[in-house]
């Protein structure tokens, strides 16, 4: 075994996940995706390709949409991370969904559901930057997230509907 094969020793890394301060012990180059899924059991973040193409592993890192499969966990130290589980903490107990989640449910934005958490977080970021996006802006805003089921159009409708509902609470 060469030196290059030896992983760097684990170290303590702290960040905020879904509003909660967390400290984990991980190899600095471990993927943020694995830390979320395996160490923190936040399995709503999905792996689709492992190479940053599909966007299923999208999370918000300090409000910026990232592919968590491409983020070494050390880079997340000190950041504020939002995963799908943090979007509507009460939803797990039949509570109210976030308006973006509700719009995806109402408009057919989710079929098989594997791209859905990433797609919803991409929408949250898009609407934070542009509260009333037109269709080209929606297409552009979601273009890093692949969906094989829907052909996207009902996702676009979900985004437009969420924007409308957020504008008139």
């Amino acid at each position, binding site marked *: 075994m060469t030196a290059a094969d030896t992983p760097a020793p684990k170290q303590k890394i702290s960040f905020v996940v879904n509003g909660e301060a967390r400290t984990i012990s991980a190899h600095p180059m471990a993927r943020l995706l694995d830390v979320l899924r395996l160490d923190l059991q936040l399995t709503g973040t999905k792996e689709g*390709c492992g190479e940053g193409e599909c966007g299923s592993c999208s999370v918000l890192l300090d409000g910026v949409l990232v592919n968590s499969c491409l983020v070494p966990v050390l880079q997340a130290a000190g950041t504020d991370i939002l995963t799908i589980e943090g979007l509507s903490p009460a939803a797990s107990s039949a509570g109210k969904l976030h308006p973006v989640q509700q719009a995806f449910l109402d408009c057919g934005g989710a079929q*098989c559901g594997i791209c*859905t958490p990433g797609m919803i977080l991409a929408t949250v970021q898009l609407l934070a930057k542009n509260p009333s996006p037109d269709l080209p802006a929606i297409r552009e805003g979601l273009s890093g997230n692949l969906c*094989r*089921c829907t052909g996207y159009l009902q996702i676009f409708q979900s985004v437009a509907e969420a924007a409308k509902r957020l504008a008139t609470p």
Partner: protein
Amino acid sequence: MPDPAKTTTVVGASVARKEGRDKVTGAARYIDDLVLPGMLFGATVRSTIQRGKIKQITFPSYINWSEFTIVTAQDIPGKNCIALILDDQPCLADGAVNHAEEPILLLAHENRHQLTKAVAAIQITYDELPALNTIEESESRQEIIWGENNTFKTFLVEKGDVDAVWSQAAHIVEAEYRTGAQEQLYIENNGIIAVHHPQDGVTIWGSLQCPYYVHKAMMKLFALPEDKVRVVQTETGGAFGGKEEYPSMLAGHAALLALKSGRPVKMIYDRAEDMAATTKRHPSRTRLRTAIDAHGKILGGEIEFVIDGGAYATLSSVVLSRGTIHAGGPYNWPSIRIRSRAMATNVPPHGAFRGFGAPQSLFALERHMDRLAQVVGISPTEIRRRNFLQPGQTTTTQQAVPNEVNLPLLLDRALELSNYEAKQQAAANQNKNPAISKKKALGIAAFLHGAGFTGSGERYLDSVAGVEALPDGTVRILVSSTEFGQGTNTVLCQIAAETLSLPYTSVSIAQPDTTAVPNSGPTVASRTIMVVGKLVHSACVGLLQTLRATQSLPDPATPEQFALACAEHVAKHGNLKSYARYQAPKDVFWDDEKYRGEAYATYAWAVYVAEVTVDLLTFSATVDNFVAVQEVGKVLHPILAQGQIIGGVAQGIGFALYEKVLWQHGRMRNNQMTNYIMPTSADLPPIHVHFEEFGNPHGAYGAKGIGELPMDGPAPAILNAISAATGHEFNSIPLLPEDLFAALNPMPENPPPSPQQQSPVPVGAPQ
């Protein structure tokens, strides 16, 4: 039979997707989200060559192999095969390999990273044999790689006296068409967790379409009786046919590792392995020879339809069957002869993918119809109008067309919604201007798709569905039909709620688990809502009859009266379940020998229009607008039905313009999402979906199958448009910009050397 005059309340409404809340909150648990105590991870060592004998397997000493569980073909307790139709495909290669990526060895370890290194370290040497890569090489029989003549299956469909028509024809039109492999590209890769227990046998959890297919395969692989195999479907992140047969292979691998290690084993493919090793759509070649009269009426024709099945038989015979039966499309053929065959090659077996052979043969036919129009000098709409099947006429298998079928209506609606005539005229005018590099045109495809298993298939399946009423008056549906995004859970619950006059929220569906649900057949072939939905309806009717007999349930009853009756019945009898078994409709008959009769209980019908721009500067073809008009019987859930159509059209656009599998020595070279391109949110046009309704007596509340239909039409509609826009006949898909460029700028085969350019680089060569 539901009273058609009765207004439905739950059926026809866009109720919330049953498992939708879990999907939008991230709470839904897919196979990779599950962990069992003491679980190992599994990995596969695969063949790097296409065909040969395995000489030696070397385990280098720098790895401590005692840490690993290692499984070979010798560890298989039962028969070394993946039981499906034929038993020709081994679970693990035993001495010889027949395709690249064929599994040879299995490894398990606690640490995934150790597995990656171990798989890479194992050295396998082979005595290599020549391999077959194409349909033509297989047909040449230069090597015999399967059976006596490399042929998995042949079919012959005959109607009328086709040999007599050639002399009467005003025109005889011949052409050849090809379609390529296509990867299903579900976003969730294949994955399985297996447990083996000395007394209880094998338990499988996984991302899969057909729990009872896996069940059958595990019984044979482990030589176990049916009660010692349990298969449970977990939430499945897309399938499209790609999780019809392959999960049996992966389940076998995980279960063998579980048997040998005595621990639970999880196997999750990464994207590269999933794309390289699992099934894809069958590549095809179709040759058409058609006799038409001076007005463009088809007199008869011959169709030769050939698919590349890969190295083992798997599902190729049934894919071929569906492709063969759909090859004549929605047209009247007074005479026809269709010969088809599935050939063996040394590539990973091709398999089920939405449409299942029909997108291939319909691509050829619908391109050919435009060619016929050109030869006769009439429009693409007119050639179709003159040949559409009419009530009383028969399909190529001599199935009578029902009275309610009205194809001109679908065509008219599609032309109207796409503003076809005006736009086509404007495009034609614009295309005459050589200064404009963007050429435009509209293309049409008319087609049909049979719902349910082909021919006698539903009789053999003998499906059973059940419902269980609980004491609180809620009802649980018991079927092995699976949800993988298309809406099975939701629509079956709608059907039950409607039949029982219950609120939608009072009905749920059991997780598919072979110890808890009957075999309602595989979730394939656009059969679930039509066939299984009908069984759920019948089971609900049986439940009501029981309660009316035993508990004097009034008719009609309120949900409160229903709940009271359920509580009393369960208190008295322990439980309340009702099952229904498939009964073939009396008017459906199929002759397996002559390939004649009612190929499907019913067909869905469609006319699609694609509006396309071809940019002769960039050689990109873009779909600008798409109109999808179809008749799928009663639409039970408008949002889900539209979602099926839009999603299918998107995959069809990918099939035509984006998705190209690059083969090198029988291996997929571009097995990454970076290099195999599916449509993104930026690539798709507006897709206008419109439903007409002719009715269907065979399905629950008049529903037909819907899932596969939208895959059939986009590719020929788009290629028809591109051919019209450019004036060049394009007969192969996928058609990427480099293909367009090569076709429109043919290079001389041996360019003369020029002093300025000593080494010309051929188009497409690595730079």
